[in-house]
């Protein structure tokens, strides 16, 4: 019974909050805090049920699949919900100050619309992670995409509007590719339920094409190289808390669906050759993204390209987790890496927002000269960088370590090389920022002092990005629940 309420509140809580924040524009922050409380409670209830009783299923409307829609919570879903909750909570605290700080009309407008859009994004993510139905996933993808685009456009300047427009085109076209795949799957298997599909899907031309369409759409949404072109401008030009949400969560929604498709519903079509292709694209993303990050003139662009690179690591999970031997090592490694990246990237974008706030720009080469970045922000950026590079004891290290072990166990040494080169490049671009932008200039002071809550939330996420690694055993255990193979 508790689980049913958890399912309902995790989705409907933020959804109703979004509607209320629209009706009462001045109460946005309070509504969001209430939603955070409700979802946190619901999540705790759910995680207890999952730890005690295994995978939880809710048959919406009392109808079971194939006619009805099933919601499902396994270890993976619960982990994703936790990351979403933590980051959304941090963004709620941060944004309460971020949008309020300049008292002009424009920022009042922005704050008024930020809250409902943000809550829609949150509802869409929770609905996505709980869904076990590929058509329902399409609806959540559209909710997610609309909210993300509208949030990017909220920045309102020329570049933000243009990148939002491009983002919308990519996002809508990708959704249609996905939906066409769903149509073919339904025509062939007469169901859209993930679990039933796992039993019914037999390799054949129709399903190959269907899966290719769905995967193509999702890869564009997940911004895997070479379909990443829309990401850096969109993520770099959005307001800072929005950038954090996009980089930490939104792209991972598409990645999550890819996992569900290739490891569960269509596991019978997952061949080693396909897995190697995914891995290859991931490797290319790591190298291309990191190399580009090195040469970005602006801090937010650098962090955005770093996202392109870090997303590549996630796709190494495909060739590594598909193998029997050490598969679970890679599976848990990749997902811990995902959580680590989400926290670290949130910290980085929030810090970048703080710097932008203090200095009025984020040109890396000029930052050191004119402003003195307060130690908390420096520390937060450094800690997050630690996790991004993958130095012990951070959670980035834990994730990479598991992935490395898996590739060594399986003799796929080429991924080891890629990961090591990627780490070196990450170290280079993090150090570039730390040495050039954060150097202390004796007399410089920040033109605008940074509100403490904005600094402390960034730091908290950075601490989480490191500290999560110390308790990495717990998520690994959680991920065991409902893992797609025995």
């Amino acid at each position, binding site marked *: 019974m508790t689980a*049913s309420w958890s399912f309902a509140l995790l989705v409907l809580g933020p959804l109703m909050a979004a509607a209320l924040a629209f009706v009462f524009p001045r109460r946005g922050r309070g509504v969001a805090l209430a939603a955070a409380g409700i979802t946190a409670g619901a999540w705790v209830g759910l995680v207890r049920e999952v730890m005690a009783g295994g995978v939880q299923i809710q048959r919406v409307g009392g*109808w079971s699949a194939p006619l009805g829609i099933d919601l499902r919570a396994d270890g993976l879903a619960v982990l994703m919900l936790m990351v979403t909750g933590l980051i959304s909570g941090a963004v709620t605290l941060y944004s309460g100050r971020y949008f309020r700080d300049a008292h002009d009309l424009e920022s009042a407008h922005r704050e008024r619309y930020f809250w409902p859009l943000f809550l829609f994004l949150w509802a869409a993510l929770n609905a996505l992670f709980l869904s076990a139905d590929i058509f*329902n996933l399409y*609806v959540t993808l559209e909710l997610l995409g609309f909210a993300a685009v*509208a949030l990017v456009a909220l920045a309102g300047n020329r570049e933000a509007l243009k990148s939002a427009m491009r983002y919308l085109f990519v996002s809508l076209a990708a959704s249609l590719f996905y939906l066409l795949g769903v149509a073919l799957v339904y025509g062939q298997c*007469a169901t859209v339920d993930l679990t039933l599909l796992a039993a019914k899907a037999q390799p054949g*031309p129709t399903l190959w094409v269907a899966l290719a369409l769905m995967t193509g759409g999702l890869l564009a949404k997940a911004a895997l190289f070479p379909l990443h072109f829309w990401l850096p401008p969109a993520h770099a030009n959005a307001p800072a808390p929005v950038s954090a949400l996009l980089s930490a969560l939104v792209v991972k929604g598409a990645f999550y669906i890819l996992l569900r498709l290739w490891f569960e519903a269509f596991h019978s079509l997952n061949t080693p050759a396909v897995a190697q292709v995914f891995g290859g694209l991931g490797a290319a993303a790591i190298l291309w993204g990191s190399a580009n990050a090195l040469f970005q003139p602006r801090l937010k662009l650098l962090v955005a390209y770093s996202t392109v690179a870090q997303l590549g690591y996630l796709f190494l999970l495909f060739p590594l987790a598909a193998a029997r031997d050490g598969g679970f090592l890679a599976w848990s490694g990749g997902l811990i890496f995902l959580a680590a990246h989400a926290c670290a990237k949130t910290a980085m974008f929030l810090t970048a927002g703080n710097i932008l706030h203090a200095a009025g720009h984020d040109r890396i080469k000029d930052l050191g000269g004119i402003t003195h970045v307060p130690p908390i922000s420096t520390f937060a950026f450094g800690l997050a960088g630690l996790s991004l590079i993958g130095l012990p004891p951070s959670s980035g290290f834990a994730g990479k370590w598991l992935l490395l072990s898996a590739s060594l166990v399986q003799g796929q040494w080429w991924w080891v090389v890629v990961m090591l080169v990627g780490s070196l490049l990450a170290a280079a671009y993090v150090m570039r920022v730390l040495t050039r932008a954060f150097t202390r200039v004796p007399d410089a002071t920040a033109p605008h002092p940074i509100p403490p809550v904005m600094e402390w939330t960034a730091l908290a996420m950075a601490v989480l990005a490191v500290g999560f690694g110390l308790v990495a055993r717990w998520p690994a255990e959680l991920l065991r629940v409902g893992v797609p193979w025995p």
Partner: protein
Amino acid sequence: MDREIAMMSHVFDWILVLLVLALAWRSLNDCDLFRGVIQFIALGLLLAVAWLRLRAPDVALAEAAVGSGLTGALILSALVRMRQRERRGVPASASSDTSRTLQSGTSNRSRVLIGALSLALLTALGWAVFRFSAQSSGLAVESLAKLPESGVTNPVTAVLLNFRAYDTLLEIGVLLLAIVGVWALRRGERPGDDLRERPLLMSLLRLLLPVLVLAAGYLLWIGASAPGGAFQGGALLAGALVLGLLAGLAGRFLRRERLLRTGLTLGVLVFAAAGLLALWRTGGLLQYPAGQGGAWILVIEAAALISIGLTLGLLYLGGRPEEEK
């Protein structure tokens, strides 16, 4: 006799399909954008005929109202707005010269490349769809078997508001999200002209507006047992709202902002509250109490109708109504 019908419908199918494809191509690649939009509207109309032909009357109704009518009106008014700004604006850069759009943009090389890519896509799709068996019942048997328990007798309404009601709940969320996004983006123009100098139009509206509202209610009510429902009705309601906006009749209504916002969110809030109430009563999210399905669906649909009509109508306005305090 049957063979004659079969042959005739084959002829019909071929002409329809060719016409649809030709219109699709022309509407997107006509050198005159305005003409392209006109052909786009005609395409929607033909698609609605195709949906009827494929025994999907519910979808055909929605396509006729939303797909062709509203989308067409939306794009047309956006085109007018853009052209007006272009003429007002700076004698702009080369790319804003719209008469040139056929040649603009991508180079010939990449056109060929993308054309080849699209052909490959088409080939793969054709290969896939030719493999489908000619007969398959899909989930028709299951849905018809459970239809008596759903509370309505139109199977599509049963799927939308009972079997897969969760999808529909999220979709009403998408509608609300769209209008929030549009309002965040821009302020709408002061709508409408004064129609007192156009007596003929005014008398047409006097007739048309009530008929539209009546037809919306009719479609909502009949949706339980025949093609129709909240979306189709909502689209007609939106048509009424658009006319009201164009005629400058809705100005006072647009100033009541709290009321407007409440109306827009009504669908989501009632639907979600119904879901939670059902959870409390029966222990299952959106699981209506036995035997009460029809009543629950009607309440939800009525709330959704208002929100859908308002949302689609206000999308036409293209932005938030007035300056907010």
